[in-house]
């Protein structure tokens, strides 16, 4: 057993764990951070988009040396059927600003840099160390962790669980349930390398400008899911994710889905001739507000993906992770400054602070969205994309058919597919879940 006692132990060196460890170390607390990977980032997977505002709150001058890929000047949303896509694109010169709002990043590289800042702030970061269990006293209070290293048990006043979406510790200690198949998505992703100039030409970019594409439709084969294509400097991150319950139910394979997405005529040209250098898979929390577990207890708090903090509608996760990690750390510091014990009652401050932040406000706003999307996946991810694509084609194809007839046939196709009641019901439910 390590005799040394810490103010806090942080389990995991992803966005949430690094934010928490950095914040506490900066405030002079004695912090130990444990990471099972070879280095911080070696187990972490994301698209990935970095949100500047949330990182600035931790490292204001991050642009000086952080490994950033491209700053985003354009966002494309695609609704896809098998041969087409209908797009909503937004591009603005306003995004070409000195302190850009969003960047693409490569997580393994970014997290390594982030971790160097945590070390510089004074935290002890121990990699290649898997935490196997939480150490609890006879009252069930968390008093530390047990690792797979010989020197076993390490004690601290509080443990910050930043163990990710598939975190085992919280479940093993019965602090929260294991994620259910209908509350998490499995995403698979490839890194496609191409010369810089090729990427810039294909995506209509100049210099370090970047673009991301989020896509939904028949690419997920009727499952609740999304595809994504992010332009980095010299590579393209391309992936697709669907609910685990949907994979289980349909028997579709993730790699087959990924390859079908890559073969789509709207996608194939973007990655033509690329060299794939990595294939990754990761779970994404999709359960929304109602799936958030108990966030604190005697001697522990849970942050980031482990707490299911992910805004599935806006595709935001890493910012909720960073912010929840920072807020948890600030709450812990406040409790410590008042010389109070790290009890459930005192750590409830973390939840109160998180309630007041955008994190839980945004999650709460979309609390009904996951259920709507998951129970109507056939309609929202198959039927409507097909109808919308057909409507666009009917609208654009000039073939001598009078426009009144075209409009009638389009309307009829919608009514035949979903009925008037279905259409109004879907619109009503969507509006209600969105408001």
């Amino acid at each position, binding site marked *: 057993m390590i005799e040394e006692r810490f103010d806090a132990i942080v389990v995991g060196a992803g966005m949430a764990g690094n934010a928490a460890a950095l914040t506490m170390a900066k405030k002079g607390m004695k912090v130990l951070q444990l990471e*099972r*990977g*070879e280095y911080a*980032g*070696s*187990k*972490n*997977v*994301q698209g*990935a988009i970095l949100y500047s505002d949330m990182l600035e709150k931790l490292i204001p001058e991050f642009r000086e040396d952080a490994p950033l890929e491209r700053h985003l000047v354009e966002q494309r949303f695609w609704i896809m059927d098998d041969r087409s896509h209908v797009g909503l694109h937004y591009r603005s010169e306003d995004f070409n600003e000195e302190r850009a709002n969003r960047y693409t990043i*490569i*997580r*393994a*590289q970014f*997290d390594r840099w982030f971790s160097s800042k945590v070390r510089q702030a004074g935290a002890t970061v121990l*990699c*290649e*160390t*898997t935490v*196997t269990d939480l150490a609890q006293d006879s009252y069930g209070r968390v008093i530390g962790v047990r*690792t*797979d*290293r010989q020197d076993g048990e390490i004690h601290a006043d509080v443990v910050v669980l930043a163990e990710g*979406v*598939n975190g*085992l510790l919280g479940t093993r200690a019965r602090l929260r349930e*294991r*994620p*259910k*198949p209908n509350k*998490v998505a*499995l995403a*698979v992703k*490839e*890194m496609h390398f191409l010369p810089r100039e090729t990427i810039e030409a294909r995506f209509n970019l100049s210099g370090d400008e970047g673009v991301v594409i989020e896509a939904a439709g028949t690419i997920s084969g009727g499952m609740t899911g999304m595809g994504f294509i992010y332009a980095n400097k010299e*590579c393209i*991150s391309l992936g697709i994710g669907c609910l*685990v319950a949907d*994979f*289980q139910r349909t*028997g*579709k*394979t*993730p*790699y*087959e889905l*990924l*390859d079908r997405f890559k073969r789509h005529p709207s996608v194939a040209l973007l990655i033509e001739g690329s060299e*794939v*250098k*990595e*294939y*990754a*898979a*990761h*779970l994404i929390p999709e359960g929304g507000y109602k799936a958030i577990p108990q966030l604190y207890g005697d001697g522990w708090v849970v942050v980031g993906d482990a707490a299911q903090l992910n805004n599935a509608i806006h595709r935001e996760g890493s910012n909720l992770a960073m912010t929840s990690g920072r807020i948890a750390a600030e709450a812990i510091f406040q409790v410590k400054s008042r010389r109070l014990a790290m009890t459930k009652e005192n750590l409830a401050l973390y939840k109160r602070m998180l309630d007041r932040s955008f994190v839980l406000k945004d999650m709460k706003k979309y609390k009904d969205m996951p259920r709507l999307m998951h129970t109507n996946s056939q309609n929202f991810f198959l039927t409507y994309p097909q109808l919308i694509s057909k409507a666009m084609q009917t609208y654009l194809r000039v073939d001598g058919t009078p426009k009144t007839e075209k409009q009638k046939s389009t309307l009829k196709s919608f009514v035949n597919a979903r009925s008037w009641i279905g259409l109004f019901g879907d619109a009503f439910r969507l509006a209600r879940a969105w408001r």
Partner: protein
Amino acid sequence: MKVERSVRVEDKLFCNRYLVDAGHPHIKVRAHTKPSPQLLALLKACPARCYDLNDKGHVEVTVDGCMECGTCRVIGEPTGDIEWSYPRGGYGVLFKFG
């Protein structure tokens, strides 16, 4: 039951970095005579195709290509069909990009 073979997952995994902890698989399949629906689902849901049927019709796992996503844990652990731990520190998949 045949798993989709048109995509070669082995080729995809080949470009990944791993440090295999030989003799210490981090996932174990419970001994069974007839695979449960959950176990059969893993043959297709696992993105690294770690699960396969052996000659006796039992589901087996080979964790060498595992990307530690947890999909099989979410499906197969509640029924007790599999046991899931993380690899020992430093072992397993080592993402270059993530």
